[in-house]
């Protein structure tokens, strides 16, 4: 039956040229852009390289790599729909994080709380966007968009996969992009809201935190979460589990694996899976533009709220707390803390705020997980 001619046609109809839609071409371009930002500009490369590549793979016509039988589709189904990947990442983050600075200065938790303001303002912003024709965000959508302001990748992915899976791609892109842009977005806001004098405040050296305190910390956080906010328990639970592996001192081989191989494997899979949500027909629409816009606002407001709370604490402490460290409350660990350090050094070349900013920085992680728990409780029901 077949002649060479027919075979040729059969091959031709499977080529990319014969099947491309413009949206796919554009999305492959966006995938390349993400790779460029990751590799050349070094923006969150650990996530943006797999994600950018996943964006390219998922927009290849014919191949259906993001379809239910394609590798990206399978990874997404296995790891994102179930919440497994973000939770395992959170475990790894827990195993990688030293909460010592926060234990030494628990007050800085207030900065991590204030910076979550960005989440809720963005939520309202998303609802307000509904007034513009073309936007129809539900309350769940708005909550998922708001969490971008938490500046925490796994939390954003976890919440979006629960509340608004259709928007997951745009939300993940916005979350990681703005986290990468922290060094650009935050400094002007920080300078605008603080005086030279405030920025020059040198903070006291932190007290020593004992091993027992570090072991007690994850358990304390978990128990409070269990009692008051069980809906945040998956996130807080895995974070504190990882941290307990790290601090307890008797399971170093598990802690090492959680910090290295396991989180690396899951990072590769998570990035590719999230990239699979950047398919042209799901991504190229007004909503994505709206989400990117709202994400920018979220970061700005979160930073501002953190700095303003920093100013309050500056007053209350009689000038002992440098308000700049409030900006680190958005999370974006450890980028935000480094930005604080840098802006502090601009004002005074011997003012090292890095360690002091780590307190609010990790407090921001807890803060956004708590906010996610609240949103799940109230909106997710």
């Amino acid at each position, binding site marked *: 039956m077949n002649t060479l001619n027919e075979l040729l046609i059969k091959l031709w109809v499977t080529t990319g040229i014969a099947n491309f839609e413009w949206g796919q071409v554009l999305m492959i371009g966006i995938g390349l852009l993400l790779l460029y930002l990751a590799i050349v500009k070094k923006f969150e490369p650990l996530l943006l390289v797999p994600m950018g590549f996943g964006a390219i793979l998922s927009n290849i016509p014919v191949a259906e790599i993001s379809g239910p039988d394609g590798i990206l589709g399978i990874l997404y189904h296995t790891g994102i729909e179930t919440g497994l990947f973000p939770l395992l990442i959170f475990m790894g983050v827990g195993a990688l994080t030293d909460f010592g600075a926060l234990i030494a200065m628990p007050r800085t938790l207030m900065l991590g*709380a204030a910076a979550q303001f960005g989440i809720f303002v963005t939520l309202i912003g998303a609802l*307000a966007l509904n007034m513009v024709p073309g936007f129809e965000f539900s309350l769940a959508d708005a909550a998922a968009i708001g969490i971008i302001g938490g500046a925490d990748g796994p939390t954003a992915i976890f919440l979006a996969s629960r509340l608004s899976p259709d928007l997951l791609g745009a939300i993940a892109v916005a979350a990681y992009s703005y986290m990468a842009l922290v060094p650009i977005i935050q400094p002007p806001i920080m300078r605008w809201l603080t005086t030279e004098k405030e920025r020059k405040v040198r903070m006291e050296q932190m007290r020593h935190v*004992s091993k027992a*305190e570090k072991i007690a910390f994850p358990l304390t*956080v978990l128990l409070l979460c269990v009692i008051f906010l069980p809906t945040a328990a998956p996130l807080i639970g895995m974070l504190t589990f990882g941290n307990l592996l790290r601090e307890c001192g008797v399971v170093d081989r598990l802690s090492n694996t959680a910090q290295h191989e396991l989180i690396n494997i899951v990072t590769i899979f998570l990035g590719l899976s999230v990239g699979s949500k950047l398919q042209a027909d799901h991504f190229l629409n007004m909503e994505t533009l709206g989400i990117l816009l709202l994400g920018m606002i979220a970061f700005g407001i979160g930073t501002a709220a953190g700095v303003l709370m920093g100013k309050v604490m500056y007053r209350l402490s009689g000038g002992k707390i440098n308000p700049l460290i409030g900006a680190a409350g958005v999370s974006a660990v450890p980028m935000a803390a480094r930005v604080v350090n840098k802006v502090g050094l601009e004002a005074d070349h011997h003012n090292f705020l890095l360690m002091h900013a780590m307190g609010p920085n990790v407090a921001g992680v807890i803060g956004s997980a*708590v906010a996610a728990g609240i949103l799940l409780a109230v909106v997710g029901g």
Partner: protein
Amino acid sequence: MDELINQGLQLMALGMGTVFLFLGLLIFVITLVSRVIQKYELKAEAPASTSTSSHDDLVDVISAAIQQYRSDHPRRK
């Protein structure tokens, strides 16, 4: 529409309230736990020196090493 935004505002009030309450409580509990631990550790400091089974361990390690060496390097003449 306004209804939805109204809901959002209430969600903000509730959300920020809860975040502050929760993290505020956390400050309180962490501080408490730290004090308890520090007090306990201060007490424990004097009679510490827990090196109990150090001798056994040394013996274990060396005997294992010797046995290992012997089993890996049988004498042949």
